[in-house]
């Protein structure tokens, strides 16, 4: 029997009269490398926002590791192993890279509310953050303020923050957007090198990357799931071809 890391049932999100998510029932298998594709404005980010609790659905359910989490707050879902990155960086401009990631590690290991001893007294958190920066080749920027980094580097911090959650399910919203091509390759190697038991749901416009990376693909159009399947199935699916026909696939 397949186990699902993440599911939605008849998920609907309306912004006023506009239906951004239309009756989506998505199944993401545990350990999958699952890609979510679709044209601009299809509702991919909205779906991620519903999965993480950033937005409340109009109706329907979100199920994480078999348990409904529809009404759990974002931070409670994070505690259950669900982490994400944002399509547009949401970082801490005035913190250094190491401070930012240490803060994230602090929250994960549950010491974020300790108020008496200094940050440096929790060496295990600082060490882990430094370790993570090393993996992402950010170590030489550790003491730089986030605001002083190039966008591509900031993008890596966005990912470092999510990885600091040690997620069981990781949602990546166009992680390579704004990263120079030379670096995006490395970025994807890092993502591909994550432990296999981490489930990944990836939004990405670059079809080469998607087909190389994913073992499952879901296609979202106008808020609704058009179809889903293996990369081979999607590649020959006439409906998918139709959607993408004539549309310059943006990167």
């Amino acid at each position, binding site marked *: 029997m397949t186990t699902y890391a993440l599911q939605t049932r008849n998920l609907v999100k309306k912004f006023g009269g506009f239906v951004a998510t239309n009756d989506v029932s998505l199944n993401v298998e545990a350990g999958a490398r699952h890609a979510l594709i679709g044209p601009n404005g299809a509702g991919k980010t909205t779906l991620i926002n519903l999965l993480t609790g*950033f937005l409340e659905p109009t109706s329907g359910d979100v199920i994480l590791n078999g348990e409904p989490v529809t009404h759990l707050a974002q*931070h409670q879902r994070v505690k259950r192993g669900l982490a994400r990155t944002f399509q547009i960086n949401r970082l801490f401009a*005035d*913190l250094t890279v*190491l401070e930012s990631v240490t803060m994230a590690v602090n929250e994960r290991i549950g010491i*974020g509310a300790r*108020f008496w*001893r200094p940050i440096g007294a929790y060496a295990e958190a600082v060490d882990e953050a*430094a370790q993570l920066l090393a993996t992402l080749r950010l170590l030489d920027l550790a*003491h730089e303020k986030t605001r002083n980094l190039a966008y591509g580097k900031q993008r890596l911090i966005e990912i470092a923050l999510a990885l600091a959650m040690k997620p069981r399910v990781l949602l990546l919203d166009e992680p390579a957007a704004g990263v120079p091509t030379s670096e995006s390759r490395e970025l994807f190697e890092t993502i591909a090198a994550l432990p296999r038991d981490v489930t990944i749901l990836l939004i990405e416009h670059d079809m080469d990357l998607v087909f190389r990376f994913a073992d499952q693909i879901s296609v979202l159009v106008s808020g609704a799931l058009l179809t889903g399947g293996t990369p081979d199935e999607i590649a020959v699916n006439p409906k998918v071809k139709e959607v993408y026909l004539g549309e310059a696939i943006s990167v």
Partner: protein
Amino acid sequence: MQATLALDLAPIARADRWRPAELAFWLIPVAAYFIFPENLVLLTQIAITALFCLSLDLILGYAGIVSLGHAAFFGLGAYAAGLLAAHGYGDPLIGLAVAAVVTAVLGYVTSFLVLRGADLTRLMVTLGVSMMLYEIANKLTDITGGVDGLQGMEVLPVLGQFEFDLYGKTAYWYAVAVLFVLFWVARKLVHSPFGLSLKGIRLNVGRMPALGAPVNGRLSTVYTIGAAYAGIAGALLAQTTQFVALDVLAFNRSAELLLILVLGGSGSLYGALLGTIVFMSAHHLLSDLNPQYWQFWLGALLVVIVLFARDGVMGGLRGVQRRLDAAFGRTK
């Protein structure tokens, strides 16, 4: 562990060490005592306002919660300590403790109202709460004395040893000691993981829940702490002047406090202290020099400082330090 070896962790691991400039700063209250022995009343007021401002810095400078009604806590603390002393419970430290608890409770309860909205809502809610308290104190003349103020306080010696004297020496050292201890605690707080998470919330409140941080819990905690600090400041004022005037709760006090913090530079603790020293000294000097137009000059001074020194006095000092470092070829 190779990675950590390659990186010097000192900037984060020892971020909380006391710098020489800080030690020098704390010589100011000692020096002031000997240089201005005639002005101990003013100096005591400065110490108390500095503590009050510190409490606003915790909630605004660190956590980003704007408030136009912080005097609610100051005033409540003043009345709490004042009423205790007027009813035969004159031990000053017990007075501070009770004021802290009472204002913390009010802070905790109102934090849920304050946190419901965004900045504008917060301004209005904090303002509203302080206006309500003002009116309550104004109406309950039997208890508070209303506009005549609360009288008949009998404050016992500090620690049973140091009696409050006519020159205000005890009052001054008492206020400075309380300020220092609470500053030391606040300093620990802002360098802790909790303090870091507050900065995170101020810098990007939308990201923190995605890192698993319970944002509202953290904010209501710091709001409660800030309220208690303000309450203690109010209690100090009541005890050192043996009187509580209705204007401890006045809007003016909240607004002026915000001004002082912006003037000093928020989010550094020392900005709150320096801002208070500069503001109250300028206030004192200008009103002496020019009794009629001092507010005009004070206003002008504020505009100049806020426009030309980003982040207020602290920002200006940091600029000077950068230039000195550059001139002497030091790197930070």
